[in-house]
C-alpha cells in the first residue's frame, strides 16, 4: 500500500487467492451438520440468519405503523390491529432482535477466538440456546398468526392480566423461553471469558469487545430471571384470575412494574453494551491506534453493568412511586449516564494522531457515535424528574430509545457485520455500495426520528392510532424518513448475499487489524487455531502487527 492511499483494505491477489479448502463451513455438509453443530461459528451463523428474519418481520410492522400515522385519521387499519402492530413490533425487535443481535451472532462467533479458545465453554448449551430462541420465535409467530397480542411489549398490568383477551399467554411463554436463550448465551460467555483465555491473555490484554460482552453477560444472567418470574406471575394471574397485580383484589399493579423494569432496564444495557464493544474494535482498527484510555473504556462497561441494576424505577416516575424514591432513582440515573459519556469521548480521542481511513464499518461507527450521543443526552432529559413529566409516554421517549437502539445498536451491529464479514465468509462485500447504504441509513434514520423529538415535546402520546391534525406534518416527515431507512436496510441484505458468491477473496487480515481473530485464516477452521496461541502483547498493538512477519502469533514460544 502506498502511504497516500485512502484505504487500509489489503486484499490478496485475486487471480491466485482462494478460500481455504478446510474451514468451519466446509468441515461438514448437509443441513443436519448445521442443526446439530457444536461449533460456535456455525451457531453464530444460524443466529445471524434467524435474527435477520425477525428483524425484517419487525421492520415490516414498523413500516405499517408509520404508514398508518401518515394521516391523522385512523384510516389504514383498525385500532385493535394498530395496537397489535406496535406490540408485535416491540416484542419482536426487543426480545428477538436487539437482545441477541450482537452477542449471539458476532459475539458468539468472536468471543472464543478473541480469547484464544477453540470454542465456547459449553457448545451444547450454546446450541440449546439457539433452539430456545427459535422456539420463542415460533411461539411469537404463532401468537401473531392466531390473531396477535395487544398488550404493548411492556405487558402493563392490570391491562394485560384482566382486560385483554388476545394471546398474552403465548407471547409471555415465548418471551420466557427466549429469555432462557439469552441467559445461556450470557452464562457461556462469562465462563468462557473466565476459564478459556489462552496463555498470556490477561484481563487487560483482552479486546474491549470481550469486556463489553462480559458486562452484558452479567446483566443477562442476573436480570433475565426476574423478567421470567414476572411473566410467570402474569400468566398465573390470567389463568386463575387472582389479583397479585390487581388493586381490586388487593394487589399492587406497581409491583409488576418494579419486577418488569428490574430486567427491562438492564436489558437496555444488554442491548447497547455489545454494540459499544464493536465500536471500540472498529474505531481502533481504522485509526490504526490503540483505543484511547483502554482501562477507562473497559471499566466504564463494567460500571454501566453495575449501575444498570440501580435505576429501573426511572420508568415509573409518574406512575405513582413515592416521590422520595423517584429522587433516588433519578440521581442514580444521572450517574449511569457518565460512563457512556466517557466512552464517547475516548472513542473520539482514539482518532487523535491516528491514521484514519473511512471504510464502511468506520462510517457506521461514526454514525453510532453521533446518534448515540444524541440518544444518551436525550436520556438525561428523561432522567431529570420534572422534564420526565412532560416527555414520558410521548413520542420524545420513542425517539430517544430509537436513537439508542436503532441509531446506536443497529448502527453498531451493521458496522460489526461489515467489519467481520470477510472473516466470517472469507469474501469482501462491494465497498462503494455498502458506503452508500451506510449514508442512506444515516439520513433516513435522522429524518425518521428527529421529528419525533419535536412531536414528543408538543405532547403527541406514543401508541396513538389517530392524532390531532396539527401533528401531521412532522408525522409525514417521519414516515418519509422511514421509507428511506427501509431502503438503507434492504441494501446490505442484497449485496451481502451477493458477496457470498461473487465477493472478492478477503484473505486472512483485510483490515490489517491486530485482534487474534485476524491472525487466523478466514473463514476460520472449526477448531479456530491449529495450536493454542500465546498472547504476548497488548490489545491493539499495531507495532506488534508490523513485526508480525518475524513472529507468528499462533506460534507456541
Amino acid at each position, binding site marked *: 500500500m502506498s502511504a497516500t492511499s485512502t484505504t487500509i483494505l489489503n486484499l490478496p491477489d485475486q487471480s491466485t487467492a482462494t478460500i481455504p479448502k478446510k474451514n468451519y463451513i466446509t468441515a461438514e455438509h448437509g443441513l443436519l451438520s448445521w442443526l446439530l453443530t457444536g461449533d460456535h461459528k456455525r451457531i453464530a451463523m444460524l443466529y445471524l440468519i434467524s435474527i435477520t428474519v425477525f428483524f425484517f418481520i419487525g421492520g415490516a410492522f414498523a413500516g405499517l405503523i408509520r404508514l398508518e400515522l401518515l394521516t391523522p385519521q385512523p384510516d389504514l387499519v383498525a385500532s385493535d390491529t394498530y395496537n397489535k402492530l406496535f406490540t408485535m413490533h416491540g416484542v419482536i425487535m426487543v426480545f428477538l432482535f436487539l437482545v441477541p443481535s450482537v452477542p449471539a451472532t458476532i459475539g458468539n462467533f468472536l468471543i472464543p477466538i478473541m480469547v484464544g479458545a477453540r470454542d465456547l465453554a459449553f457448545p451444547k448449551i450454546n446450541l440449546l440456546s439457539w433452539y430456545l430462541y427459535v422456539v420463542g420465535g415460533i411461539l411469537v409467530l404463532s401468537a401473531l398468526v392466531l390473531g396477535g397480542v395487544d398488550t404493548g411489549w411492556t405487558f402493563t398490568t392490570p391491562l394485560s392480566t384482566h382486560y385483554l383477551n388476545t394471546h398474552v399467554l403465548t407471547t409471555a411463554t415465548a418471551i420466557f423461553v427466549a429469555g432462557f436463550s439469552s441467559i445461556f448465551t450470557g452464562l457461556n460467555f462469562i465462563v468462557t471469558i*473466565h*476459564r478459556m*483465555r*489462552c*496463555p*498470556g*491473555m*490477561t*484481563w487487560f490484554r483482552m479486546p474491549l469487545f470481550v469486556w463489553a460482552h462480559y458486562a452484558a453477560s*452479567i446483566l443477562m444472567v*442476573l436480570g433475565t430471571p*426476574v423478567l421470567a418470574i414476572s411473566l410467570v406471575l402474569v400468566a398465573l394471574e390470567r389463568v386463575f384470575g387472582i389479583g397479585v397485580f390487581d388493586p381490586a383484589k388487593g394487589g399492587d399493579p*406497581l409491583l409488576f412494574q*418494579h419486577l418488569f423494569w*428490574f430486567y427491562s432496564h438492564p436489558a437496555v444495557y444488554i442491548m447497547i453494551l455489545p454494540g459499544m464493544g464493536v465500536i471500540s474494535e472498529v474505531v481502533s482498527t481504522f485509526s490504526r491506534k490503540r483505543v484511547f484510555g483502554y482501562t477507562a473504556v473497559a471499566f466504564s462497561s463494567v460500571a454501566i453493568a453495575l449501575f444498570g*441494576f*440501580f435505576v*429501573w*424505577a426511572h420508568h415509573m416516575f409518574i406512575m405513582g*412511586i*413515592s*416521590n*422520595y*424514591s423517584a429522587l*433516588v*432513582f433519578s440521581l442514580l440515573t444521572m450517574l449511569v449516564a457518565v460512563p457512556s459519556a466517557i466512552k464517547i469521548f475516548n472513542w473520539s480521542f482514539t482518532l487523535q494522531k491516528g491514521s484514519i481511513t473511512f471504510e464502511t464499518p468506520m462510517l457506521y461507527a461514526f454514525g453510532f457515535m453521533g446518534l448515540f450521543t444524541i440518544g444518551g443526552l436525550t436520556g438525561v432529559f428523561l432522567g431529570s424528574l420534572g422534564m420526565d413529566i412532560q416527555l414520558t409516554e410521548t413520542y420524545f421517549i420513542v425517539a430517544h430509545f430509537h436513537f439508542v437502539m436503532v441509531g446506536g445498536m443497529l448502527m453498531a451491529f451493521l458496522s460489526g457485520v461489515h467489519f467481520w464479514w470477510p472473516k466470517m465468509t472469507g469474501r469482501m462485500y462491494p465497498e462503494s455500495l455498502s458506503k452508500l447504504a451506510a449514508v442512506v441509513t444515516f439520513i433516513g434514520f435522522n429524518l425518521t426520528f428527529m421529528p419525533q423529538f419535536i412531536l414528543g415535546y408538543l405532547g403527541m402520546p406514543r401508541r396513538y392510532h389517530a392524532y390531532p391534525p396539527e401533528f401531521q406534518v412532522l408525522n409525514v416527515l417521519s414516515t418519509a424518513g422511514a421509507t428511506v431507512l427501509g431502503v438503507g436496510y434492504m441494501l446490505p441484505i442484497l449485496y451481502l448475499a451477493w458477496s457470498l458468491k461473487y465477493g472478492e477473496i478477503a484473505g486472512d487480515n483485510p483490515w490489517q487489524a491486530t485482534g487474534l481473530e485476524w491472525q487466523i485464516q478466514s473463514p476460520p477452521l472449526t477448531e479456530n487455531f491449529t495450536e493454542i496461541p500465546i498472547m504476548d502483547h497488548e490489545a491493539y498493538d499495531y507495532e506488534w502487527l508490523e513485526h508480525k512477519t518475524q513472529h507468528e502469533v499462533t506460534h507456541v514460544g
Partner: protein
Amino acid sequence: MADEATHEQHFHDPPNVTNPEHAEHHIVTPLQYGYVYITLLIGTLLTVLAADVDMGIFNPIVALAIACTKAVIVILFFMHVKYQSNLIKMTVGAGFFTFLVLITMTLSDYISRAWGLW
C-alpha cells in the same frame, strides 16, 4: 493475574486458571457431612420451637436468622464453597447482592409512599 512464570510452575494448568480463580480439588469427608447434617436437623427443630414462643416482632427475625445460618452451612459444606476459589465465592456473593438490590431498592419505594399501607 497470570503470566509466563506461573505457567512454568504448574504446566498442567493454563496460567489464567491460577489463583484467585483456581483452587485445588478438595474432598469433604463423610464425617464432616454428618456433622453438617445433624446441625441442619437441629436448626429445623429450633425453627419450629422458636415459632411457638411468642417473641412478637422477633419471631420472623429469629426464623430468618436460623434459615440463613442453615443456608450458609449448606453452601459452605454441602456445596463445597468453603474450599472453592475466590471466583466462586464472589459469584455466590454477587447473586445474593443483586437479590438484596432488588429487595432494598424496591422497598425504598413502598416504605416511603406517603399514601401507603406501610
